[in-house]
């Protein structure tokens, strides 16, 4: 088992004919993901990577029966792409695109909810179930199949954590980047729940960052619902207040969203909080193989 994606995933890529879309669709396909089609308006009827391109998600659904979509559409159109996928009945929507306006996301998220879909991202690296299925932009070769579930708000910092784990011989069940924006589809809490219910996952590595209150909410959830060991790192202990650290969501404002308050909340929930990002891998190892 694993969470959200596996051998049964049937993937379409929205924006498949673009530079990024085609590059990463191919990389996912090479990893073993079952790519069944792509969507680019006005390019319906073309073929790419051995699959058909459709004008709309609805057409792609009718012809190829996908259950997952990955979105590479430019920011100004991406929220509509999410809504289109949700309305066409796609159950798992992974939006890689960065820079979607907040008001657009408020509407897209409503569409996702009302259609009973799950959105991951936006502004995220996607997710990977090692040696089975990849729906994302992460470097494939750093992953290894195993028992640690990895959740993160960041991209490259997740690669860092996964790399450390793999170097130490520790494999992963599923690694998922939930995104660095103020509005995201799937929260830490929902992923924690999925990992708790997943037999393959024996321990969880959760990487947060400054801004918002998602880590505090996750702490509350961990306290009452998670029995598996959790190791965490929060990026931004040295970040100043009022400055947006790259991600639209990573900002300390009005004294809220600091790394230390998040670390405190996690520690209170029984999480092993790692203060040095260089030691994430070894900390997880020490917990699962004491």
């Amino acid at each position, binding site marked *: 088992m694993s969470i959200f994606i596996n051998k049964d995933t049937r993937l379409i890529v929205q924006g498949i004919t673009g530079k*990024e879309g085609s590059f990463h669709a191919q990389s996912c396909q090479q990893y073993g993901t079952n790519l069944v089609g792509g969507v680019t308006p006005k390019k319906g009827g073309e073929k790419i990577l051995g699959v058909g391109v459709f004008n709309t998600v609805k057409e792609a659904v009718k012809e190829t029966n996908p259950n997952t979509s990955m979105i590479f559409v430019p*920011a*100004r159109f991406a929220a509509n792409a999410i809504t289109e996928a949700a309305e066409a009945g796609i159950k798992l929507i992974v939006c890689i695109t960065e*820079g*979607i*306006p*907040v*008001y*657009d996301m*408020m509407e897209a*998220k409503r569409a996702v909810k009302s259609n009973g879909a799950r959105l991951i991202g936006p502004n995220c*690296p996607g997710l990977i179930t090692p040696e089975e299925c990849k729906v994302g*932009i*992460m*470097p494939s070769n*750093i992953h290894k199949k195993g028992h640690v579930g990895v959740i*993160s*708000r*960041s*991209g*490259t*910092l*997740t*690669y*860092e954590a996964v*790399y450390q784990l793999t170097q130490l011989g520790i494999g992963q069940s599923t690694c998922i980047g939930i995104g*660095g924006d*103020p*509005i995201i589809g799937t929260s830490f809490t929902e992923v924690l729940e999925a990992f708790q219910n997943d037999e393959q996952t024996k321990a969880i590595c959760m*990487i947060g*960052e*400054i801004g*918002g*209150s998602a880590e505090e909410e996750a702490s509350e959830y961990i306290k009452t619902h998670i029995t598996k060991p959790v190791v965490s*790192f929060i*990026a*931004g*202990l*040295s*970040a*100043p207040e*009022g*400055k*947006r*650290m*790259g*991600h*639209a*969501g*990573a900002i300390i404002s*009005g004294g809220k969203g600091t*790394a230390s308050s998040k670390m405190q909340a996690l520690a209170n929930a029984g999480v092993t909080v790692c*203060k*040095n*990002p*260089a*030691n994430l891998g070894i900390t997880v190892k020490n917990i699962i193989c004491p």
Partner: protein
Amino acid sequence: MKIHEYQAKELFKQYGIKVPKSVLCEKKENIEHTIKDFSVPCVIKAQVHSGARGKAGGVKLAQDYQNAIEIANEILGMELVSKQAGAKKVNKILIEQAVDIEKELYLSLTFDRANEAIALILSTQGGMDIEETAKTTPEKIYTELIKDNFNPLETVSKAGFHDNISKQIADIISSLHKLAKEKDALLVEINPLVITKQNEVIALDAKINFDDNALFRHEDILALKDEAEENPFELQAQKEGLNYIKLDGTIGCMVNGAGLAMATMDVIRLAGKNAANFLDVGGGASSEKIEKAFKLLIADKNLEAVFINIFGGILRCDFLAEGVKNAIQNLNIKVPVIVRMEGTNKENGADILNHSGLKFTVIKDLNEAIEVIKNI
């Protein structure tokens, strides 16, 4: 993106929200005749992107013309020091007609992250620190999440306003909501919103923050950007498409990805130093972009060392190495450059650096980084 009070008030006027009569002044030599053409008493207000301008001495009431001219001369050109924004030079002042205040209110619409919706905050206790009011007398603050069936008149009544000014406040709320939605504003704040002795409701202050990600569809808003308010390094970086923030430390750093960039700053802190900047070169940076980023970084005079930490995914380590090599060859860099590369094409990257004839300290992981930075 932030704008000035006078710009926000122009937008308010477009949306039918009443503001006091005012005039902007940007030059000392214009102060006298500008004020002579105006009426007293008036308020002189520093136009800088900073909160708590009043406390910092940037907002003052003048009773007569002589007094107004003196105050205007004092504020225009001053260094306004506030806790939030540090020291900022005042390049513009707003001269505004004084208003007979009966009561000061607080009104704002702000994006509420926890609820993923726009929240309205209305309080009968305006003019002062709203966070302080929230702490000491929370019953004086009315909050509501704006939903599809939002009814401003009902809101105003629930907030405790029942007399003949309810309609005026409700109209202002409607206008603010329209403005926020149409212009992609994530914060619209009026503090204070005043009821005058003549029973008029007027916005005495105006603050608007816009969603940077939505500026592509608002050329009019983008045109309001005041470059003098931005850090020159950060402005340069924006023009190069780099994500750069100037900080106070001495270790310059260049990283790909915002999360890893923050973690790298934390690693520098663990080594007992502080980062001189946050710099995320992004996912698909070319060697030219890396070179530009490096030049920007190295222009900081306070540097003791540079730490490059790249986890190659989409960004290839050989591109990075090429860019850094080119930048260093063309510059006379006196501080040590520490490089850590992992991921895609790291061997090729290391080869480029090792054969460049330049001096680098190449390290293999973040723990080694801490040791090396400690010993600088």
